Structure formats: C-alpha cells, structure tokens
C-alpha cells in the first residue's frame, strides 16, 4: 500500500478535517459534548496504532459515540490511506493519541493544517505547562517539525477557552 499525499485529485470532494486534536484520552466527554457540536463534525476518526490493535477497545470507543455520528478507528497508515481516498464530503474530527502519532500521521500524508492540543498527561521527564498539558523535550521537537511543515499548533482544551500558541506555553511553563 503506497500512500502519496500529492496524488490526491483536487476536483474530488474533499474529506474536510474540521478539527485535528492530540488527546491521550481520544474519544471522551470534552470531545463529544463540546468539540463535535462546536465544529459540527459528523465523523470522528481515531488514528492510533495501539487502539487499532485492540478489538475490545475499538468496540467500546464506537459505543461511546451516538449512532448519527460515524466512527472510524484505525492505525496511522490505514487512516492516511482513508484520507487519500476522500470519497465523501464528511466533516471529520481527527484524534491522535500523542504528538509522535500526529507527526507520523502527517508524514504518511494526513492533510493537517492546524493541530489542537487537548490533553497530554504528566509523567517522567515531562514539564507541566498548563492544567491539562505536559510537554517533554521530544514533544517540543515534534511541534517544531510540524510547524516547519506549515501546521499551526494551538493549545485549546475546550471551545470556550482562548487558543494559545504552543510556544507561549513552552516558554511560560506552569501558570
């Protein structure tokens, strides 16, 4: 399966990504109750190799979404292939579990223009930069690479929050 983002035909109806978000919890309340209606998405796409490998988790995640919204859960390569086919005009909300997955997805050809930072929990070697976000050194270099590729990265937990550029957060630290 070869995936080349440049081969997409612009005359076909575009699969529109209305929100791409990095959120370690993937499909959960903030996404379903706040973001889906805010961006009026009618399709949720989860791009995660780990989840794709676990049938139980896939089933449960799909069960958390009302029937009127379609759910597609797959590995990064699978999802990149899905976007390159673009055979419908659905409004897609795309979820990545981690910055690393987002970068890999971007390299595989998922058309990202803007990336929303939702939840990234703390842990070893991670610095808390806001209530819901913690960055590691690796994360920062990934953001740099994505931004160099033209992807705008904004931290915004809920639609009612003000969007904040990741560099402001990384420089400011906790507060």
């Amino acid at each position, binding site marked *: 399966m070869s995936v080349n983002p440049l081969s997409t035909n612009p005359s076909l109806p575009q699969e529109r990504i209305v929100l791409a978000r990095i959120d370690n919890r993937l499909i959960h*309340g*903030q996404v379903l*109750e706040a973001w889906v*209606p805010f961006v009026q998405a009618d399709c949720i796409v989860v791009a995660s190799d780990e989840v794709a490998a676990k049938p139980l988790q896939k089933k449960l995640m799909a069960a958390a979404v009302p029937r*009127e919204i379609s759910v597609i859960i797959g590995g990064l390569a699978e999802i990149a292939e899905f976007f390159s086919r673009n055979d419908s005009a659905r409004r897609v909300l795309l979820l990545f579990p981690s910055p690393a997955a987002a970068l890999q997805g971007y390299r595989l050809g998922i058309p990202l223009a803007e990336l929303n930072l939702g*939840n990234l929990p703390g842990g070893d070697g991670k610095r808390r930069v806001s*209530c*819901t976000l913690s960055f590691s050194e690796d994360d920062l270099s990934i953001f740099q690479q994505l931004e160099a590729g033209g992807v705008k990265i904004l931290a915004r*937990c*809920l639609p*009612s929050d003000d969007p904040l550029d990741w560099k402001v957060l990384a420089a400011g630290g906790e507060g």
Partner: protein
Amino acid sequence: MESFTPYLLGAGMAVLLGLDRTAALQIMVSRPLVAGPLVGFVLGDPLTGLTVGMLLELLWLCRMPVGASIPHDDTQITVSATTLAIALSATIGSGAGLTLGALLIALPLGKIGQHVERAVRTQNERLPAAALARLQLGQLPAVERLHLCGLGNFALGALTTYTVIVLVGRWLILSGAPFFLDLLTTQADWIKLALVLAGVATLLQALNVRRAYGLFFGGFLLTFLLLGVLR
C-alpha cells in the same frame, strides 16, 4: 433586628451542599433548584429559596463538571443569595425586590467560586504524593485519612466562597437598597422572565442536537397559540 443565626445556618448548608458538587455523593442537592428551597427550609422560608433556585437553575445547567474545566459555582450563589434575602428581610422588609436584589448581587460575586475551586483542586495535588510517602511507611489508614482530607479542602473552599459572597453582598445590599429596591419590585416579573430566558438561550446553545431550534420553537409556538386561543 438582624440576627446572626441565619448566616451561621447558611454556612452549614453551604458546606453540606457544596460537597455534593464534586467531592461526595453528587445526588444533585447542589443544583440551585434543590439547594435554594433546602436552605430556605432551614431558614424558615422555602419559597424565597425556590424563587432564587428557579432563576439560577438553567443558567449553568449544561456546564459539565468534567475534568479540568471548572463551572461557575451556582450552588454557593444560590445558598448565599437565599441566606441574604431571608436574613435581611427583617431589616429591609421581605419581598420580590430584596430576593432579586440579593440574587443579582450574588450572581457576579459567584465568579470568586471558580478561583476558590481551582485553589482547592491545586491544594489537593499534594495529597497523592503525601499518600505515597505514607504508603512507603506502611500506614494505609493514614492514606485513607489523606483522601478524606480532600473533603476538608472542598468544604473549606465552599465556606470561603459563601463567606465572601455573603460579606460583600450584605454590604452592597444594605448600602444600595434605597436605590434599587422599589425599581426591582415593580419590574420583578420581567426580571424573572429575563433570567429564565437567559438560561433557556444558553441551554439551547448547549443542548446541541440536530434541529434544536426547531424542537424548541415547535413546543413554544404550539403551547403559546393554544394558551392564546384558550384565553
């Protein structure tokens, strides 16, 4: 004569009902529509509490107590506004004007609740670390007590919010009463309608299903025409 007892009872209710918001049970006694009449009942005037609770109920109904987002503290607004309205009725004279005055003053003061709540949850951050230290000493009962310390923090937070709203609110009401009381009393019905409508509008926004406005106006028009024809 103004007595101190209602404020004390109000403080007790503020703690009990405040805990229901996040820390314990969550059986929704913290909802304004329940908290208001309950506080009113304890202070001897449940109907004033019902009015306060009813006008506040819809405003933050759809703000979810989820994760890191902290909603406006409508419980403490209700408790303190009800307490103020009942406690001051002896000095100012009870009525819709005073109830609405207390409510409209407590409403913006409730903003403090968000900051207090954030402080409480930040304060609680020390608990897991402390618990781990105790665990390494093999003191499991102490760990359980640390968890319950969180309850204490939440209770303290509720009390703080309540006290601030009541203190500042009481001063504002007493010094402002001559100016707004009559006006509020004459406009009471319209203000009640306006507050409910503000709540309805935010709900319409938050209950985001397809055709939300269609369902709402369907219900509205049908009932309204029916009521009009029957009149």
